[in-house]
């Protein structure tokens, strides 16, 4: 028996396939596009091509498009899924998960493998992947390029929390001839500070902090977050699939 988890987020859809021993057999991601229903269909096709016919597997969907997956057996929220997925990926029962997603940022406190508490920023794009994307666009870069470049910058801060105002701040920094790496630094710094304020609302104690979600592939984000939270933040190559992996686990 195989277990499929599908995490339809705001910018990308992640899929994971696990066997009954919780081995991760397959993970893949694709852009969400305009319609969650089309995305779900294309995921179904992909799965079939890889030899995992959804109707023969147990399928659980999560993420904001979770109800749009016609072949899913049940839906579970992204909080529960991220928690389960991160626990498996990092092999920990007690941890603090920071998930910087495309449209929202979640911080989840896990104790003994169960969600103890969580905070979600879903009202404002500051401190989310969306903020990074908009700023990267303004700087004519890819988000991951911006993050890498930020490492070599410094001494610039973006004070606006509103994405629209922050964008005009970035434009005026460009106009003033500020170095690109410094602007990039300011952008990442703004996100990290916002995320840290959220994370500090939960009493993590000595629990290991981990980073999941789309931004975890950039080393500098982890580094900056570790600095801001004053504790080491680790990540993993599968961390951006935490939600999907957790969803698959929810089917067991």
């Amino acid at each position, binding site marked *: 028996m195989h277990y499929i988890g599908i995490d339809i987020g705001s910018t990308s859809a992640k899929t994971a396939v696990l066997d009954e021993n919780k081995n991760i057999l397959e993970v893949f991601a694709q852009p969400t596009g305009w319609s969650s229903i089309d995305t779900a269909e294309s995921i179904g096709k992909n799965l079939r091509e890889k030899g995992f016919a959804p109707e023969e597997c147990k399928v659980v969907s999560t993420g*904001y498009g979770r109800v749009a997956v016609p072949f899913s057996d049940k839906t*579970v*929220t*992204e*909080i*529960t899924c991220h928690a389960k997925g991160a626990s498996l990926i990092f092999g920990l029962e007690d941890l603090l998960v920071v998930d910087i997603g495309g449209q*929202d940022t979640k911080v989840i406190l896990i104790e003994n493998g*169960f*969600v*103890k*508490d*969580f905070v*979600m920023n*879903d*009202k404002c794009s500051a401190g989310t992947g969306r903020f990074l994307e908009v700023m990267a666009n303004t700087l004519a870069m890819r988000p991951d390029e911006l993050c890498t470049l930020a490492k070599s910058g410094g001494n610039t801060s973006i004070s606006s929390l509103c994405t629209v105002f922050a964008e005009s701040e970035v434009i005026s920094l460009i106009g003033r001839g500020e170095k690109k790496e410094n602007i990039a630094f300011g952008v990442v710094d703004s996100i990290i500070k916002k995320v840290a304020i959220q994370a500090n609302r939960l009493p993590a104690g000595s629990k290991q902090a981990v980073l999941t979600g789309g931004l975890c592939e950039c080393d500098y984000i982890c580094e900056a977050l570790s600095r801001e939270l004053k504790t080491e933040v680790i990540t993993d190559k599968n961390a951006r699939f935490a939600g999907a992996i957790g969803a698959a686990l929810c089917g067991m």
Partner: protein
Amino acid sequence: MSDYVKMWEDLGMDLETHDQLCQVLPTAFGDVYLSQENRPEGMGFWDFVVSEIHGIRPSELIEAQKNGQKVFGTFCVYVPDEVVIAANGIVTGLCGGSQFWVPGGEKVLPKNTCPLIKASVGARLDRTCPFFRIADMYVGETTCDGKKKAYEILAEDVPVHVMDMPQMKRAEDYDKWAHEIELFAGVVEEQTGNKVTPEKLAEAIKIINNKRKALKRVYDARKADKLPISGKDALLMMQIAFFDDPVRCAEMCNKLADELDQRIADGVSVFPEGTKRILLTGTPLAIPNWKLHHIIETSGAAVVCEEMCTGTRYFENLVDETQTTLEGQYKALADRYMKNNCACFTPNEGRIDDIIRLAKEYKADGVIDVNLKFCSIYDTEGFFVERALKEAGIPVLGIETDYTDSDAEQLKTRIEAFIEMLG
């Protein structure tokens, strides 16, 4: 509601705009309420009242006015109905709970005012609610800053009496509130032309106590393991209690409570076994604000109690009925009303104790602390509420929202995640 057009016209209402409201309300009510299964039969009364919400009770009030009675509109559970009833006056709640009225309020109020205030001011100034037109006098109170200032704006359009509410709960504050109630009685006497006598006031105290007891019976039924009534239905009963005649309200609530007691005896429940039980605490849910109850009860949980002004704060604690002098009665009233625990007071530890007590009494699996956007006092107090609950080992979720539906999806995710967290 079509037979009431003439009455609305006579009230000087903006019929065209009001029509839009009349068109959306039945759909909203159908989606949220009538879609529920196995509702208690007793709810038929409240369904009927909602179907005629801007017609039936307003026409009763107008009839009463024709017979010389005066109608007082109130905005807070600290304002003592008893005094008005003793002078043969009528009380009606006036809090606005719909986004429909908010833009009207925003014409004169700052954007960062809580939606309850914006909706209330909008309902008056836009002339789209009969209750706001009918009231001969509004009774305000110095509770939160937003309301205090809003009353000044309303006072340009309608007579307003403002009660000066204490902000602390020392002995002298109780005395002060008793004195304020006495002053209020004077205003009511002047408006109605009737004297408040100890006999009349004693009678009014009994009437309102009976209403409190009846509301409490329905709430007590929600303590049962098998819930005989949904949170949504209990909320509706509560919201309409602010508008209805108190004697009829008690009668209907008692009837409903009888039915619920029978359901408990027969083991009838409106939720499947194992449904998670949620206690709601926070700012009031004025009619027709059913948003959170709907989200919670369509996400696999049930609301078992509201520690709110549209909830336990409205009916808990009775007024001492043994006093025979006005002085003693005003004091007894003050004692009862000062037992309410609103975030307007500092400190307000009593509310924390109430929440923990109610969570236990109603066997809540978790608490949702909900605050209307821009209500800074409840929002700030949320810090203590959430800390105390965590210390007591009761899971808690804090939520801030307004009357719009724009955050419904995000709220659903949070609330579902919270319910999953409860296990």
